[in-house]
Every structure is written in C-alpha cells, then in structure tokens.
C-alpha cells in the first residue's frame, strides 16, 4: 500500500469515501500490516454496531495483539443471527481470527 504520509495517501484521505470503500481499505491495511492506515480507517468507520465494522475491529484487535478485545468481539460475532454472520467481513473474521 502507499505510505500513509505520502501525497497520494493524503489525496486518498481527502476523498469522501463511502463506508464500503473504507471497510475495503481497512481490510487491505490490516492484510498488509499498514497499521497507520488501519488506525485511520478505524477512526472513520461508523456506526459501531454494524456487524461488518465489528468484524473489522476484531481483525484489527488481532493485528494489534489485543486478545481481550478479540475474545469479546468473537463472542459477539459468533452469536449474531445467521444472515449477519454471512456478511463478508464477519465471515472473514470468523474464519481467520485465531482463538485467543
């Protein structure tokens, strides 16, 4: 990914990105270990009770080694209704986040 502090990074942050774009950016940042981007997106993402955002917070916490948060969110994700568990980022988190 481009550097967070580069002119291109600044230009990207200046775009009024939609929530799907932000979530995609968040996952890319986590996948490539670009935590400055990941932290920035986390601060933009709302609402907090959206299952996909919750899932990304879980992946984010896992990337930060915050096992307590991972455990809490995984418990929540596992108890979501099936349609919500089927959402893209929720599936991703449930499939890839190691049990703390």
């Amino acid at each position, binding site marked *: 990914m481009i550097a967070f502090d580069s002119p291109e990074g600044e230009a990207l942050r200046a*775009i009024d990105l939609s*929530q*799907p*774009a932000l979530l995609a950016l968040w*996952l890319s*940042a986590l996948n*490539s270990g670009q935590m400055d981007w990941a932290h920035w997106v986390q601060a933009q993402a709302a609402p907090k009770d959206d299952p996909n955002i919750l899932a990304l917070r879980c992946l984010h916490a896992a990337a930060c080694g915050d096992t307590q948060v991972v455990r809490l969110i995984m418990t929540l994700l596992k108890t979501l209704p099936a*349609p919500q568990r089927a959402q893209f980022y929720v599936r991703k988190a449930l499939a890839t986040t190691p049990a703390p």
Partner: protein
Amino acid sequence: MTKPPEFQEIIVLAMGRSGTNLLLENLRNLQGNIGLFEIFSPGTLGSLENHPAFFERLQANLGRSYMGQSDPALLERVLADQIGYFDILSRTAQEMGFQSISCKIFPTQASPAMLQHLLARPNVRILMLTRRRIDRYLSRKKGVLTQEYIGRETTNVLLDFDLTNCLTDMSQSDRDLAAFLDCAQGSGRPLAILGYERDLDQPDDLRHAAITAALAEIGVTQTLGSAVAPDWLPKQDKSPDWRHKVKDGFAAASALVGLGLLDYVESAPLMDLLPSRSTGALSKAQIRPAATLTAGNRGKLGQRGGYFESLGRDPLVTVTAIQDHQSILAEWMIGPEPAFAARKGVHFLRATWSMETQPLDALADRLRLAELDNPGHIFVALHVNAVEAENYRKSGIRSILGSSALFTDETLWASDAPPLSAIPKANAVMIAGLADWKNHHLAALLGPVHFIYAAPSKAQMDRVLALCPQAHMVNHILGKGQHLYLDAAQIAGVFSRSKLSLALSFEEGAHRGSMESLLAGLPVVSVAALGGRDAFYSDDNALIVAPNAQAVRDGVDQMVARRLTRAQVRKATLALLLPARHAFEQAANAVIQDHLGPLAPHLRVRDLVGLSRNYRKLADMTAGLQ
C-alpha cells in the same frame, strides 16, 4: 370462485448504467404486466409511447392531452406530484386489466421522503439491481463521452482514468444505493437484489432463471415469457476486462492495488450487505433435488474418499484428485443430466501419482465426457514438471504448473515442535506405508530409524523389521503394540526426535511427508524419483543419492555432518514454496477468468492450504454445492 391475483407494483431501484434497460425490457415479457421504464425522468417518460392505448387512457385519467412522453407540460405535472402521478399510472393499468406494472427509479429522480411514501404503498414489490463498481463507472463515463447511452458499440473507446474521480463517483453511488436500501428495507415490502454480471449478463436461459427466481422472491408469480437481450439493446462494451476499457489499464489497476482498493472497485455494492439470495437464485429455480443427484452411480461415487475442496458455489471452483487413474469428480458428473444444473465451473485436478509415465487417453476421454454432459464446466490438471505437461498436452488435457505439495500447511510444521519423549532419538525419520515400493530396504544400513506408516499387514511389518531390525516402528510404539494413527502434532513430535527425513520411493505423487518434514526443518535424503517432490529440493535442504543402501547411509552421514539448523531448512523450503504458490495462484486465476469472465471468484492458495490433510467423502463436498 378463485380470487383474482392482487395487482402488483414492481419498482426497480438502481443506479443508471447498471443494466436496468435490459431488466425492464425483460419485465415487459411478464404475463399481464405493463412494462414501463423511467417514470420520473426529467427528460422523457420512457416507453409510454410504446403503449399507445395505455398512454391514451393515462391522459384521460390525468384530465388532459399531452404532445407525447416528452411534453414539458407532462414532465412538469409529474415533477409537481410524483406520488399522485404514480397513483394514476397504477390505477390506469388496473382499469385496463393488467396484473402488474413495472418501472424504474434512479437516485436523482426521487427524494428519500418521496420514495418512503411511494414504497409504503401496499402492493409494491422492490427489485434492486447492482453492478460491479468499475464497470458501471466506466460505462457511465463512456456514455458521457460519446453522448450515446444505448445502441452504439463502445468497445474501442478508451477512457482516461482519473483515480480521484473514480473513487468519488463510486463512493457517491454507494451512498445512493445505501439510501435506496434503507428506504426499501424500511418499507417492509418484499425486496430482491439482482446482480448485473451474475444474473443479467448471461445467456438467455440463465437470465430468465435469475429474473424468475428474483420475482418469485418478491411474490410475483406471473410467468416470465422470455428474457432475451433485444436487438435495440446490444451490449455496448464487449471487453470482458475493465483494464481494456481505459488507456493504461495496467497502471490504473496498479494504482488501485497501491491504495488497497482494487477488490473494492471490482466488486458490486449491496452484494456484500445482502448476500441472502446470493447464489441461491439459480439453484432454487434450476438445480435438481439432492435426492436425484445422490441416486444410482452418483450415490456410490459420492461415497469415495479423497482430498476434495470447493472454493466457490456459483460459479463452482473445485480442487480434487486424480486417483487410481481417474477423477472421481468427473466420473460423478457424467450422466444424462448436468450435475450442477446451469452453473458453470472450473475443476482443478491434482494427481496423487506421477503422470509422467501414465497413459492418459482414458482419463482424457472421461474428462471430455464429463465436460460434454456438463456444459460450462472444464477440468484443468496440475502438472509438476515439463514432462507431465507434455503428457497432458498430448492427451488434450489442459494443465497448469502446480503440485499437491503447495497446499501443505506450514503452520502445522513448526521447526520447534516439542519432541515426543516416548520416542528415542534417531538420525532419520521416514513417513511411508510399509509397501515394497516405498523401498525401506534402502534404509537397511542406517541402524536406528523412525518409521511412520499407515496400518500395515503383519507380513509387511515382518518384512520391514527383517530388513531394518533396529527401526523404531513409531505407530506401534505410541500405540503400545497396536497401530496408532498419528496426528500432525504427534508426527511433528517425532520430527523433533530426528535430524533428517528419508524419501526412498522411485515413483509416487508429490510426497506429502517430504514437504511436511522440510517445513518442520528436517532436510531430506532422497533418491531420484518421479512425482515432483524434487521441485522443492535445493542444495540448502536436500540431497539426492544413488538408489542403494550404501549411498543412502553415506548421504545421511553427509547431511548430518552439515549440521543445518531446522530454521535454515525451513527457510530454504519456504523460499521455493511461496513463489510456487504465487505462480500457481496466478495461473489458476488466469484460467478461471478466461473461462468464467471478469466476475469469476478469485482463487487464493491460502484457502487450499491444509487440503492435504482434509480427507473426506466426495458427497461431503458435493452436498455443500447443491
């Protein structure tokens, strides 16, 4: 007396350039439906003039005559009271005996408040249509550039790509569609979502099935006569890859990768949010009951065991084995009816035995037959080297470079697994069944050696113990005299009691034990062999010796003397494995894209890692695909 069906108002909510004309044109073929297009367009009330009798009656109900569907007075009237106009449209259709009315609305044509009112009508049924962001965006840009939104072929029109404009436009579309979705869900009216690529940009029969399924989902039960692409609506851009629609597609794609947003632009909105219908659309309408599939020969073949993996349901992407000279999946698919109804698929086949010397014509015939019985499905073998590739090519079997060894899970085979204290130390470990062809006799001069094996016969045990009397028969030691099947952790524990591993067969498959021990950091002493295990050998992790017991003993001594650390060996192995995985992923996705088009699922090797330890029945895989 049967109650007449309730009049239904089918409203399509979508962004422009999503394929709405094709959908609305097809809805005109819905029995008893009056098919309109944009009912709130500021420029022209599309398609009213296609229904002269309806337009005449509409004008009567509106209380005056107009010059046509583009009459400014009519447009002004509509804009002044959209709800009232829709009410009159609906009433007119009912008076004329229609069972339903269909129309479309774009985000700029209705405020959220108006839309909430409109969707609150009791007989409203909602269809939403979505399309891949990048293709919709480029279609719109081409429309703006050429000022021709229908009819003109634009395949050769290449656009300048403006990244900021692209992301801004897509983000706005996301918000518009999210607002539509909020209104639609908030109304509580039946809602179904169609995907342009998945449901509409398809052969006529598949498009028909998809629209029929979506209509059924929202409670519309009238018959859809046909779902053809009409002559007046030809596909404007025939390029399957968006990179070919812009001037420097590679640079544009690279820039998007750099931003971490390529997947985003190549996906469609809403499909992520509402996957509930997802691949079920076609299957509900077209896939035969599971009972039919598991009957007869398919039922028996479904009980066969192997390493079967599916990565996508619609379209299908599978990775299964060629075992005993046949593909069980292909055999299972051969039959009078397609195994997966209308869905397409790419089926990768990895051989469990070297294909360098195998006659392949019989296999090729069966694969061809399975493809003929299942239109839209192809089989692609994995070749481990150029000789296998040539052998496949001569038989007419497609193949790409790949090996079962690629799917070995490196996380299971750490170089610091705790040693199993019940097992004494030895220089070498050999994972191999006790069959003759595994060549245990080549280990006869090694003294103590660990043998790990599948359940043997007594004769096999006796023979091997006669050849290698000092061998540690690990499965029986851990099983306290009985054969114990070892899990990965136990095998890793034995590895930690060993300095290297042996691979002594002259011919077999990719040799799982060889890759597992390499990833655990044990160098391999091997004889030259067919099957492809040497693809992951280098001077830093392996030694190939002559096929005699003396050479094997010397090779073991030589390798032990090198004192390679387990971390070194693992690193050298990963240096070969990871690029090979990447190359396979590239080649596999090229095949998938070529066969299934730009919306094809992306195969990721990491989803296949661990496959070599996931033994199951074929039916366990196919059940999940029905």
